[in-house]
């Protein structure tokens, strides 16, 4: 539908769908939930056009296991949902991580806990980055802050999933999902990825393949977990992505990701006009987290303000990176409330005043 290289005005949710198709994804299994409905709606007509398969599953749980089945059979496959639905998927994500299957999971976050609300939130950060299901695993988690970046990261997400045989989450929020912005689906060089010789395709001319996560022998399970752990260390070594914005001369740093980061950029512009030199560190991967960037920046500045659409989740990772070398402040709105640039400006001015006093 959308030609490569052409700029089109579409919502983040539609960009997710189209970028998945461009990345070769041919299978989508999902369940309706606001504010991500445009993703399944878009793919329900686009996938059949390219010979793909769309199923509206009976539940989020069934959807994630259809993903498990298709991923295990060698497909490029994804699901999408929003916070309460992602909670339902956690069992399956743990099994997918345990069985080392590649897939992409999109979370268009909304307010919680419980049924919560339907407006944007970033309160699923812990769930996304610390292993939301049981057993101690990690997804690789990408957090876009514009519709263009969402499209770009979707394409990367499928490659990363295949590279590591691991679930990859694109962690967006209700804003990213529903705003319209110009997007260009870029021509991308074909990545060389490991062959899927482990996939279940019928045991013809080879020993049969097994996809499983049960290891009753504790020594064997420990070895399996160590293998998974080495994979997470590899991700931390190779895949960390972070944007630094006006950090060179900055005296105060704002740390924010996703939608909040773009609001912070406006606040930084206003603050600089008032003579306060503020910069931004924006994690693009929230797992693996850019600890190193925060370690380095905390050598140069005394104050870091973390801004989130939650009451403080990413701040824990920022503190781990800073390791006591700078003061870490926090400002957050929650429940679907979004911090404004004026609020961020006020917070920074408060920090400046305290420093002078």
């Amino acid at each position: 539908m959308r030609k490569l290289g052409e700029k089109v005005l579409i919502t983040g949710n539609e960009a997710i769908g189209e970028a998945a198709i461009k990345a070769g994804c041919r299978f989508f299994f999902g369940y309706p939930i606001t504010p991500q409905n445009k993703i399944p709606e878009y793919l329900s007509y686009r996938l059949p056009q390219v010979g793909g398969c769309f199923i509206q599953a009976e539940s989020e749980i069934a959807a994630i296991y259809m993903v498990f089945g298709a991923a295990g059979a060698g497909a490029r496959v994804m699901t999408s949902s929003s916070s309460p639905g992602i909670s339902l998927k956690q069992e399956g994500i743990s099994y997918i991580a345990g069985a080392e299957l590649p897939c992409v999971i999109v979370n268009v976050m909304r307010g919680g806990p419980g049924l919560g609300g339907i407006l944007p939130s970033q309160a699923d950060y812990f769930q996304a980055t610390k292993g939301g299901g049981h057993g101690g695993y990690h997804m690789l988690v990408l957090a876009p802050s514009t519709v263009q970046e969402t499209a770009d990261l979707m394409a990367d997400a499928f490659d990363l999933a295949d590279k590591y045989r691991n679930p990859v989450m694109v962690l967006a929020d209700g804003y990213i999902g529903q705003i319209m912005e110009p997007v260009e689906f870029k021509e991308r060089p074909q990545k060389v990825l490991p062959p899927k010789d482990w996939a279940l395709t019928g045991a013809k001319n080879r020993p049969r393949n097994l996809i499983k996560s049960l290891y009753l022998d504790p020594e064997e399970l420990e070895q399996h977990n160590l293998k998974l752990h080495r994979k997470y260390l590899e991700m931390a070594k190779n895949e960390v992505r972070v944007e630094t914005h006006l950090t060179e001369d900055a005296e105060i740093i704002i740390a924010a990701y996703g939608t909040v980061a773009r609001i912070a950029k406006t606040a930084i512009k206003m603050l600089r006009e008032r003579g306060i030199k503020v910069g931004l560190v924006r994690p693009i991967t929230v797992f693996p987290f850019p600890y190193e960037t925060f370690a380095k920046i905390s050598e140069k500045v005394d104050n870091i303000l973390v801004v989130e659409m939650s009451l403080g989740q990413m701040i824990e990772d920022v503190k781990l990176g800073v390791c006591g070398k700078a003061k870490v402040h926090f400002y957050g709105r929650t429940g679907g409330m979004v911090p404004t640039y004026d609020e961020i400006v006020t917070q920074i001015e408060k920090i400046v005043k305290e420093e002078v006093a």
Partner: protein
Amino acid sequence: MKKVFERPKSMFPVPTHYCPGCGHGIVHRLLAEVIDEFGIREKVVGVGPVGCSVFIYNYINCDMYEAAHGRAPAIATGCKRMHPDLIVFTYQGDGDLASIGTAEIIHAANRGENITVLFLNNAIYGMTGGQMAPTTILGQKTTTSPLGRSPKREGYPIRIAEMLATLEGATYIARVSVHNPKAIIAAKRALKKAFKIQIEGLGFSLVEFLSQCPTGWGMSSREATKWVAEKMIPSFPLGEFKVPRSEKPVK
């Protein structure tokens, strides 16, 4: 001399972990025989359950998934949609299929997924030590229905075959038993028919096997087969509940 009996080629030459008198070994063997007879081993993908038969992949030599509890039909759906040319089956117990996995089995059947389901009903949770199952019959004592299942306290046993047969999407639904040789022969006939329906692309097929669990029931093997005949079959009548439109069901 002519060889008249041998281990099916689709079965690994290993002893099973099942208790003496358990029906799983019989149903595994029927499955392997059917795979051999259709010559489809290289095209078969199986999905194992959680329960006593979680290790089915140690016995059946084909590509296999190990599913989470109850989710096998969703996994089979994902696989079959990716590879419509493969033959995909799930193997599930009554806790797996009739309790935690009711949504998945109902909707896979209703979508008419072209897969085959082997559903082993032994009226109890075997692997976890004999707790009440959704299929535990009235009056049956288990470790979590110590007074015997009463409709007032625990409700009635679920009849999966009858329930799924009401769905437009299901093509073939049968209930068989493996408590004596005659029943086993009939069971194999039904299983072969179920696979044939999938091979011909006719849609969803499920065979429910009534099976003995001497350990879980606290009986000898002989008592257990008798209990299937005298107690289980009256609660779960045998027969075909849904057949392709061109056929009449065998009662």
